[in-house]
């Protein structure tokens, strides 16, 4: 009876049915925890009667400062999910030896590693990156807003929709078990017939388009919205690194979109772009995905380099060393990052010259990266090092990134890569690069800029404890993986024979993760304690670090329009120099054009989410509904000619006076 009921609805609901709800205890508890978070948040908002406020101040906002904070909150939550995946992986690999097959089935294990990689890259690293870019770039270039506020907000909501879709896969259905890049033919229908890979495709497709929109917005913002006098070569280095990174986004993300679309066509309409037979070629996919994937690494790491550059100067109380070299190094990296993708698959069997070319191009990237390292060191040299947590992260980064980079050069030599490819050595290498280069950088950035937005510092002692736990845990977790790689251990193994002697090292790596968990707990504790102490010793003024760039000239909290009077800039460290001359700006206030709030970005992304979900489950009528919602939102928005409002000079004056007298916002 129930079976016939389901099959009747089979046409109406596509492949979707109740049998796809989670069964095993681990997935079910994960799903319940995951569902509990939004439900708890919704109940809390209802209880405190804050829905209107949330809608007006956050959900419909076009203010990059608020969008930035939303990005970071999502990234932190997703980071916790990614960490939960790590715990499962490390537990599995520590115990699944010989006759013991561990806590997870092979398929479940592979879903977990795929989810870990996908979530950490797309929703943690990208989220933190876009969060910090949204918060900082307009302030540093002296802009009141980004170039395309609506596009930017839509980009965020598409990122949110992608994030939602990947999490829905835990509630109903399954997730891709094919690794974070879903190589065909394993990811083709023949070998992965369930909805997992479709969830992966549509989640990244939607989030990827969001990233592209955000990328376009920030390239134009940096090129067109700089304040008077800020020539390109006078921009803070963070803005240069963002310009490099976002240019890469514009060129790389369309490749991802197309590649995923082709894979979706294979899986949905029975086409044969990447299948084993019928003229398909899996290596075409592998080429395409890395033509996006390698630049993606630099997309993530360049803004973090920018953060480190800011921190090196401010915490050494000294000008950044070798600014011009730094800019050229960024652009060398941007260009080179597009001609190295083949080093991800030297083992394909390409000819010697092809492999050698890509290997050498890869090594050349070590030159501009090395230049950056030396410039950071010489920024600190002859400085006065203010030893606070951001600087700790920078120093740890230099050490870890150099070791990881050395491993990278080794693997750039094709014959060495034949031995290290897809081994745990590789896993250790890229974690050392991404965790130290990206995650540590954004941790440092958050500690650095936090007081700018909240008016109080983060607790320094707890920050340092968290730092040491992270660093010790990180080294314990990954140095054993280098050795395991030498011992012949490949990545993604859910089980291995006892005779190989790998288990002790996997156990050490698991202990490392315990320290990392401790670090994360301390970070959360740091946040709570800091909020607790916000009116006491942690309370700071608008410029707690003796900053150099324009964002520190603004009052905290920063008004929606950022700059009541637009500053004029004539040097690199604009605010550092302004502080020396003690100039008081007495120019009259002017009318300010501000973007109106709009829920349409959310509507467009909501349509995309419905579209993606329906496509995953083949609910074709719902696909059309989702598409119509998005298209309708787009058309409606383009008909609206009143997307801005004017804040009259008199209001600005009143608000500024209120602030000066200590009242207000």
């Amino acid at each position, binding site marked *: 009876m129930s079976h016939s009921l389901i099959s009747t609805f089979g046409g109406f609901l596509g492949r979707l049915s109740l049998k796809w709800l989670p069964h095993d205890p681990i997935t079910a508890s994960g799903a319940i925890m995951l569902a509990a978070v939004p439900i708890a948040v919704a109940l809390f908002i209802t209880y405190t009667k804050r829905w209107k406020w949330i809608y007006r101040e956050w959900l419909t906002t076009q203010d990059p400062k608020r969008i930035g904070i939303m990005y970071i909150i999502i990234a932190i939550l997703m980071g916790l999910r990614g960490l939960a995946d790590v715990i499962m992986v490390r537990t599995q690999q520590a115990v699944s030896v010989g006759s013991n097959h561990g806590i997870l089935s092979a398929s479940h294990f592979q879903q977990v590693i795929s989810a870990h990689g996908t979530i950490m890259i797309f929703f943690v690293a990208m989220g933190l990156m876009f969060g910090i870019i949204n918060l900082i770039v307009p302030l540093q270039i002296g802009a009141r807003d980004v170039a395309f506020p609506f596009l930017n907000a839509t980009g965020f909501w598409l990122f949110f929709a992608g994030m939602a879709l990947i999490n829905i896969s835990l509630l109903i259905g399954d997730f891709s078990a094919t690794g974070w890049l879903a190589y065909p033919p394993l990811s083709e229908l023949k070998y992965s017939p369930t909805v997992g890979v479709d969830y992966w495709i549509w989640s990244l497709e939607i989030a990827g388009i969001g990233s592209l929109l955000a990328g376009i917005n920030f390239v134009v913002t940096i090129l067109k919205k700089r304040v008077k006098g800020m020539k390109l070569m006078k921009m803070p280095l963070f803005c240069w690194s963002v310009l490099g990174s976002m240019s890469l986004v514009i060129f790389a993300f369309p490749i991802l979109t197309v590649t995923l679309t082709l894979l979706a066509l294979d899986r949905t309409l029975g086409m044969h772009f990447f299948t084993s037979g019928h003229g398909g070629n899996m290596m075409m996919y592998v080429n395409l995905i890395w033509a996006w994937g390698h630049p993606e690494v630099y997309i993530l790491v360049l803004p973090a380099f920018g953060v480190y550059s800011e921190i090196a100067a401010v915490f050494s109380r000294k000008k950044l060393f070798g600014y011009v070299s730094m800019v050229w190094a960024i652009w060398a990296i941007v260009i080179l990052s597009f001609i190295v993708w083949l080093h991800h698959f030297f083992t394909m069997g390409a000819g010697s*010259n092809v492999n*050698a070319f890509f290997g050498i191009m890869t090594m050349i990237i070590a030159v501009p990266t090395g230049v950056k390292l030396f410039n950071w*060191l010489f920024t600190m040299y002859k400085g006065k090092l203010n030893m606070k947590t951001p600087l700790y992260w920078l120093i740890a980064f230099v050490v870890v990134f150099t070791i990881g980079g050395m491993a990278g*050069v080794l693997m750039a030599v094709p014959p060495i890569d034949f031995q290290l490819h*897809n081994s745990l050595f590789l896993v250790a290498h890229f974690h050392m690069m991404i965790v130290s280069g990206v995650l540590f950088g954004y941790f440092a950035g958050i500690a650095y800029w936090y007081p700018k937005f909240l008016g109080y510092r983060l607790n320094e002692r707890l920050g340092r404890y968290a730092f040491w736990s992270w660093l010790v845990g990180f080294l314990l977790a990954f140095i054993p993986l280098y050795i395991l*790689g030498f011992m*012949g251990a490949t990545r993604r193994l859910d089980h291995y024979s006892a005779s190989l002697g790998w288990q002790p090292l996997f156990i050490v790596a698991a202990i490392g993760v315990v320290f990392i968990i401790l670090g994360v707990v301390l970070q959360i504790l740091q946040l709570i304690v800091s909020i607790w102490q916000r009116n006491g010793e942690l309370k700071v003024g608008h410029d707690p670090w003796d900053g150099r760039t324009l964002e520190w000239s603004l009052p905290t909290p920063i008004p929606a329009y950022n700059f009541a009077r637009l500053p004029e800039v004539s040097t690199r460290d604009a605010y550092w120099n302004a502080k020396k001359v003690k100039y008081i700006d007495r120019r009259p206030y002017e009318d300010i054009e501000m973007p109106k709030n709009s829920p349409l970005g959310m509507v467009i992304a909501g349509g995309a989410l419905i579209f993606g979900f329906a496509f995953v489950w083949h609910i074709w009528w719902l696909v059309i509904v989702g598409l119509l919602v998005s298209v309708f939102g787009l058309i409606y928005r383009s008909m609206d000619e009143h997307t801005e409002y004017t804040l009259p000079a008199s209001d600005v004056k009143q608000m500024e006076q209120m602030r000066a007298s200590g009242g207000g916002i």
Partner: protein
Amino acid sequence: MRIKKKWLVVSVMLAALVSAAGVYLSRVNIPLLEPKGPIADKEFRLLLIITGAMLVVVIPVFLLLAYVVWRYREDNPKHGQYVPDWDHSRWLEGLWWVIPTILILIVSIITWNASYALNPYRPILTNKKALVVQAVSLDWKWLFIYPAQHIASLNLVEFPLKTPVHFYLTSDAPMNSFWLPQLSGQIYTMAGMQTQLYLASDIIGNFTGRSANLSGVGFAGMQFSARSVSVASFASWVNQIRHHSPRLSLSVYRSLEKPSTYVPFKEYSNPAKGLFNDIIAKYMTPNRDHNIRLIEGIGL
């Protein structure tokens, strides 16, 4: 005084950790550091050379970092000179553009040559004729076909020592990567395509190989044994199989095609003629269902 005590504790812990690691590592087998064949050996030497070259830059970076962080700490009583506006130096910046460039240039030349010398398709120079083995990655096991010896084996590959082994590889499953770390680096196996790899062993011994590319739920079990044996015992192994093992007919092959995990060794005589090429060809025909030979078993 307290600070010194802290460093003492940290150093003792580090020393304990390093010595424990040393004891452990001296007792386990680390295939990449203990190559047993000419290819793996050259790859290992290359690894050492490049590591050495990298250390030329890496060690100064670490020393400089340690010095700068110690010397220029704000709270260091012996703080070095503070020059807040010193922000560039043509000489210094030139130095770290040029020196790494030269180093990379040298490493690039080594890379270019090594990329040719260690191309897996390149025959090993010797006066011995290479043994041809056709390897097929299946869901989830390795099939090795010896076309000249008319035998085949599952998850086990045996060859005489000091003899080049010329592998032809393909896949009748998702993509895998063939890896026998003590003897050579990896090469992908891809359906409808053929790759090649040469390797040889200098000693008599047993080695473990595996797939290094995720290929589905049985991936972790895609481990195989490689045995390097004397010429005489290889000949007797072949003979033994020829006379006593079941035939690898097309129908037997079709049963191997079906997914299975953690499959034990198995040996077969008389593999169906042209089996390896048919496995590749079936992905190249417009519609694999029309590949009559493999599907309907003509020629059995």
